[in-house]
């Protein structure tokens, strides 16, 4: 199993899901794929399919309709999985704290491993967040990163 666990850390596949964010963080997640930041050089690939995914990147506050979708996507991802909440509003609801249709942060619905603050979170911070998630995963599985 050692080789699989190590390869997972060397090339994590991420999936991005937008709850009901303002688009700012989504665009920054996308921007980190493009030439200036280019996260693919770390072996990180953006996937559209939850079954292939190791890391779920969630942006935006959970609202009453996307809560179900998010839970669904989370359940479809195979173990071990990591969830990263990107952006202030996905951590706690942030500026949307008194909107009636917002439930709050992502951690009200699924467990979150790493929180990336910022409004919108900078691509550098997102890269840091993914690396921190991998560190946690390495520790959990007892393999060296």
């Amino acid at each position: 199993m050692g080789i699989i666990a190590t390869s997972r850390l060397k090339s994590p596949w991420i999936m991005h899901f937008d709850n009901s964010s303002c688009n700012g963080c989504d665009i920054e997640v996308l921007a980190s794929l493009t030439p200036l930041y280019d996260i693919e050089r770390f072996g990180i690939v953006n996937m559209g399919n939850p079954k292939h995914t190791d890391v779920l990147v969630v942006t935006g506050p959970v609202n009453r309709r996307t809560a179900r979708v998010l839970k669904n996507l989370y359940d479809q991802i195979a173990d071990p999985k990591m969830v990263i909440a990107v952006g202030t509003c996905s951590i706690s609801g942030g500026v949307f704290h008194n909107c009636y249709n917002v439930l709050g942060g992502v951690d009200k619905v699924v467990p979150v491993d790493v929180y990336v603050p910022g409004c919108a979170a900078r691509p550098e911070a997102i890269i840091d967040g993914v690396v921190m998630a991998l560190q946690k995963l390495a520790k959990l599985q007892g393999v060296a990163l």
Partner: protein
Amino acid sequence: MIDKLKEISKDQLLAEVKKYADSKAKFVTGSCNDLGDKLEVTYYFNASPGMDMSALRFVVGKGEEVPSMTGIYLTAVLIENEMKELFGLKVKDLAIDFGGHMMLAQDSPVLPMLKSEDQKAAAQKGGK
């Protein structure tokens, strides 16, 4: 102050909207205000091409039915559904009826845009 605002009654609505449609005006949007026991609905139109905007406004009681203008302007379907959902405006004969769940989910608050008692009290106090 809204420029070129025309106050009408709800029975005149379809006839007035038809006039706009015949003159090839563009539907801009609508807005709804909660006036306590009544709802104030305003529709905005733009004489196209150009940037000349005018508005129609009518006031209805909260239980009254309002005719839908989706037969004339299909694009009003989103705003009429939204007003129905968020304010409880009773629009009849909608072209596409989302059944009260266009914006809101099953467990969302009902008619969330209506003013709460606290809000009314705060507005009264500040107005003096």
